């Protein structure tokens, strides 16, 4: 993400952000990008209010309405000194600073890692609302996949710095599903040998399968009919899909 905003320069290759090579991003481009860094470094001696005014003085598109709304909804006291904020509140302030200039591109590096589940959900809902208002692009880097999968519509997975998946979230959800089989007539096979079955666990009467639905002819009904079983199809969440992506990338 630092490469994207030009804070670090690539040793090889090129990063283009908003149509400009990242190492040449100027004031006009940087003003259109908001970012929340993973390691939040804000001046501890400033009060939140003063920090907001300081940052706002650089942004022509700073929204005071949005600032007030976010401060209220995220329950941030503007009179508190930044150095006295808890990590969670510090993260909230960083989000406010990144979002209030109405950026076209918002980069969030682990934006909710220090927040409790309730605030995480509230913050992410707020971000979705803002996304709708501005029509901006939000890039979220996170290890808390369960939270972010509700708000993202495109997934890029990285393994050791390499892109292993770059796909729409819906497509990913359709690609990997979970089937629960219950036998209607006798025992189920001890092992399912179909190539699209990635993982399995079974006993005589029921089975649990993780299936990769790529290509034609893979549907739950015909599979159930073949094995004399009722098939219940369930979607998988990102946290469970991610190991499958890693396995695929490694094989």
């Amino acid at each position, binding site marked *: 993400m630092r490469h994207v905003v030009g*804070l670090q320069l690539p040793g090889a290759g090129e990063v283009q952000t908003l149509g400009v090579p990242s190492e040449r991003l100027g004031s006009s481009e940087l003003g259109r990008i908001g970012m929340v860094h993973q390691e939040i*470094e804000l*001046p501890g001696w400033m009060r939140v209010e003063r920090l907001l005014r300081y940052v706002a*003085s650089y942004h022509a598109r700073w929204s005071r309405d949005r600032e007030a709304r976010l401060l209220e909804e995220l329950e941030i006291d503007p009179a508190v000194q930044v150095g006295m904020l808890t990590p969670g509140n510090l993260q909230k302030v960083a989000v406010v600073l990144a979002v209030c200039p109405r950026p076209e591109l918002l980069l969030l590096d682990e934006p909710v890692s220090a927040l409790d589940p309730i605030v995480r959900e509230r913050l992410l809902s707020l971000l979705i609302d803002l996304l709708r208002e501005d029509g901006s692009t939000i890039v979220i880097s996170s290890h808390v996949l369960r939270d972010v999968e509700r708000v993202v519509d495109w997934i890029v997975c990285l393994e050791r710095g390499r892109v292993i998946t770059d796909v729409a979230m819906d497509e990913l959800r359709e690609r990997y599903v979970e089937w629960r089989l219950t036998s209607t007539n006798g025992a189920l096979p001890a092992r399912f040998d179909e190539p699209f079955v990635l993982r399995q666990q079974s006993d005589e009467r029921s089975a649990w399968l993780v299936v990769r639905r790529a290509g034609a002819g893979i549907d739950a009904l015909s599979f159930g009919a073949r094995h004399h079983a009722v098939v219940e199809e369930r979607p998988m969440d990102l946290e469970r899909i991610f190991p499958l992506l890693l396995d695929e990338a490694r094989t």
Partner: protein
Amino acid sequence: MNALSAYGRLVWRPHSAVQLYIVACLVVAACTWIGWLHGLMGVEHAALALRRTNSLLWIAPLAMGALAVSPVRELFHAQFTWHLPGVRRALGLALALIAVLSAGLTVIGLSLLGWLVVPVVPALALALAAFSLGLIAFDWMHPRRALVRGALVLVLGLLLGSEAVWSAASTWPVASTLVGVCGAAWLLPQCLSRAALRRKGLIRVKRVMGLALIAVADLENLPEPEDRAPARPPRLAPRGDRPWMWVRAAHYELFGWSATGWMWRVGAIVLGVPFGVCAVHFALNVLETGAWKGAVEHLHGSLTRSDALAGRATADIDFVLAMGGALFLFFTGMIPTETLKPARLQPISRRQRAEITWRLHLVVDLGVLGLLALGLFGASELLALLGGFEGRGGPVPGWLRPIAAMMILAPLARCWQHARRGRGTQWSHAGYMLPLVVSVTVVALLAGGVSELWSMHTGRHSAATWAVVVCALLAATQLFFRAYLRRRLALGDLI
């Protein structure tokens, strides 16, 4: 307007008032000294006195530059600053305005006092260049760069202190104006470059001010104890056994695995101050007398305190040594008394904790002051070798006195600092800075006084008598410190 409001928001805080207070004290001290110099030198040395006063023309803007950029630089390396559109332009404009203002005020002030020996326009240009040099000279993020730039400042300062440069500035005003303006135009953008913004890390302003007194040490990279993952100290002996192992444990908690790295860093601070001043002292004497050997002898006389040679310089060197020691005391005084992790990691009693802490402080004191003594002894011997003459010091070498005084006063200064700081209190910046200034000054004055008393009486008493007195005082203050620590840790809340 935007530039000024942004800069104003960075500057407007109690800390700035303290900074201004320090600068004002320095300016008043410099003016007093210059006034004294004028009176002392009289008419026959008027040119020399005037030349000395013109050093204000670059010292004052340089200090203002360093002061003006410190709140900017503090935020410059913070990652969020990178995303502020136009931050370099806005802050650069604000700094340029301050440059013009401070250079103008300096030149006007000197001109009104009748101390200006250079025409106004080239003086203004040179002051602008000095301000810009101040902007880049003290970059705490990069100690090596700070060292190089510090050396550059020293060289330029010596150049600006020389007669030739000032007469050249008077003879060729247009050329010197051009040089000054070009220098300023080249230096100013250096501190606001994109590369400067790309650097990572935020320095807390109190650390910047703490470090503002020294430019050579990498104290910033001393690992914070809380940053380190809790781990069992190396080769920890069983509880209550072999206290030295516990001192090692405390050392590990404070400084990490490096056994001696901290000592070199702190030593660099302590040695840097006297040696920097000695270098200036030496160079000024060369410039004044034009004789290298005479200057070497003069400096050697200062260090060994040979009254026949030392003259006025002796007091300067003593004060500088005392300042170095006081700085050391301040920085080591910041080491928390509760050095070991809570009981779950190192289950020791409060009494043991006090004992370990006392021993650790003793080791630190001996280490750093030993380094200082070794450095000064080496310098003294080197100067004798360079000058080709025998050392003519008294029964006790001059450099040993302030060091011994420091060693005696160190525990008392620590007690005072602990009492000032309180435990677990979040200091405001103003509340932090004032004790810094006061403690350094008080300890320096005390050390200077003790050293002076000592030097007054060394003629009447033998070195052995003084050794006994010093040892007795050392034992007394160390025992007092140990008792203080025991009481403090017995009553304190260690959770």
